[in-house]
């Protein structure tokens, strides 16, 4: 336990992954982490358009009818994270930290963990000159009245999974399919809509790694091209 504070965290960019595959992968990774068969890790992915309903999800926040969703090929997936309905789609950096809470500075303080996720995202957005802030009782990261990153987390056996979705350059119109997180009065923004142009994904991932390293006080390194990444891929595709 004492040396855990300095254990590096590998970060993998898994690219475009179907939501259900990523979900199944997360479940296995949580179990493996809880049983000590693997270490803490951070996974970056991108999804095809999908709507996920958290445990606090309400059907009234879904604005498209079922047939309409089918027509557009959008899946609706109920998930075990907290929060209401969320949209994921191309142009987002979705991050799944699968980490043992006991080994983080926040310990088993769940709100502290949420605030740390926000903090890392705020640091990245600030590095692009954006005035990113928290809003009281509205978990996520905001620029003005618009949410730029959504957060929803689940914890199983003190291992956190699910995580955040940062809007880099998603189709903002797709957020009109839902009341994101059940919030109707505030809007959604992307880095592109705020900056005029979307920064390259590689650069954002790099800044995310640095930000999480600072917040968690542990090295976070790019493991995308490591040998483990290959086996992860196979696991995800053939599990």
């Amino acid at each position: 336990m004492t040396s855990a504070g300095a254990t590096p965290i590998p970060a993998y960019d898994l690219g475009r992954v179907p939501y259900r595959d990523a979900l199944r992968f997360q479940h296995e990774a949580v179990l493996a982490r809880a049983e000590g068969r693997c270490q803490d890790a951070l996974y970056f992915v991108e999804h095809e358009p999908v709507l996920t309903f958290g445990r606090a999800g309400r059907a009234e926040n879904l604005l498209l009818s079922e047939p309409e969703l089918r027509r557009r090929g959008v899946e609706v997936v109920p998930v075990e994270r907290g929060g209401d309905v969320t949209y994921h789609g191309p142009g987002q950096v979705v991050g799944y930290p699968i980490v043992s809470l006991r080994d983080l500075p926040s310990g088993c303080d769940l709100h502290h963990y949420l605030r740390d996720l926000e903090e890392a995202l705020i640091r990245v957005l600030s590095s692009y000159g954006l005035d990113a802030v928290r809003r009281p009782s509205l978990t996520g990261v905001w620029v003005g009245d618009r949410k730029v990153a959504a957060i929803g987390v689940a914890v199983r056996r003190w291992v956190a999974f699910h995580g955040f979705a940062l809007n880099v350059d998603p189709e903002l119109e797709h957020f009109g399919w839902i009341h994101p997180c059940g919030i109707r009065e505030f809007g959604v923004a992307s880095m592109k809509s705020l900056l005029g142009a979307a920064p390259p994904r590689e650069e954002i991932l790099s800044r995310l790694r640095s930000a999480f390293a600072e917040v968690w006080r542990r090295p976070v390194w790019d493991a995308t091209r490591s040998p483990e990444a290959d086996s992860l891929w196979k696991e995800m595709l053939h599990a």
Partner: protein
Amino acid sequence: MPVTIVVPQLGESVVEGTVGKWLKKVGDPIAKDEPIVEIITDKINIELPAPSAGTLGKITVEEGVVAQVGQELGVILGQGESAPAAAAPRAPAPSSAAPQPPAAAPAPRPSAPSPQQPSAPAPAPARGTAVEEPPSGDGQRMSPAVRKLVKEHQLDVSSIRGSGMGGRVTREDVLNHIEAARLGAAAGAPAPGAQAGRVELGAAPPAERAAPSPKKPIPAPALAAPGAREEQVEPLTNVRKKIAENMSRSRHMAAHCATWDEVDMTALVDLRARLKEKVKETYGVSLTYMPFIVKAVVRALKEFPVLNATMTENEVHYRKYYNIGIAVHRDAGLIVPIVHDADRKTLLQIAAEIEDLGGRARADKLQLNDIQGSTFTITNAGMFGATASTPIINYPEVGVLGVHLIQERPVVREHRIVIRSMMTLVLSFDHRLVDGTPAVQFLHRVKELLEDPESWLLDTI
């Protein structure tokens, strides 16, 4: 030993969580550390691991209910154990094996809520319906004569309030009860003497104590009897939570001030009456007063830009675009769809757009863009008959115009009383940014424009 499952300390700022889902049912076997129940707090859903192995013996807190940190959620039983009664908040289940703690000695009636033992009855006058008396058959202390009376009339003693010493039910009490029941107010009449501590004030004659009133009692319909004090509890919807948050934020942040004026709508009523059939026929659009009001408001906003502004800590943002929010009632709760760039749209375009937005608002089909970015808001309480109201500002805007019922009222014109179609206009404004003068002038300008629509409509069409 049965092991209780409690809400653990989940963080410094976490005091409670909602039980999300029980992953196990009562009777299910449980391995240690296996997830058994979900707790949701903020945006986190945590699965609590079982503190020990066994079977799930009891679920104390059901799904969807909020539990405090440290509160018992359920109980895990070891082998051969049965559910403990001690922690049960309700009637103790007679348990065969586990020895009953002394506190669980059965109360005379299950409804008796008092956790104290009735072994030493206090001589305090009974006030409630439950009488804490040592059990004597039916649990009531009364004389044999009274008992006989009760039996004769087949009464439920527990519903009679005793006015005698130590809550004793007297003959008077029983007779009063019978009389009250006859009047359809069974159990409703306050026990005479129950208010004995009160001093009657003034000239009112002192209330009769026990003797039945010689005067004719006030007829009490059955409805007047206090009911079960039933309350229906429903969770707050997210929409309602957001509305509540926005409303109190506005009240808290903005320095609300209101000013109002009477508008003579006669000319506009005539104009609309002349146009509406034609508009409906030609364009399929219902022409209400709202598009005219939107147009008048936009004109006035251009003349008094501060009403279309918003302020931050150090800045004022004068918006040179005119996105007019129009509050719409829905069953789910208020929503404010927006006519964007109302200054660049014709009256008919605005009419069509309002109709479309209203329809989609009620069908819950609004898109984010429809409700984002208004610069000024109009709310029509007149739709439901209000003749005046002071709306809450749609913060961070600085003004909201309330429009109301148009009704014929007598007014004075040139020393004569005439009938005109009148409407009250109310402007709520944020007095931090908007001084009284521009607020009043703005409202007066809106009034002028509405009173003489033909003067300005020509150059907007």
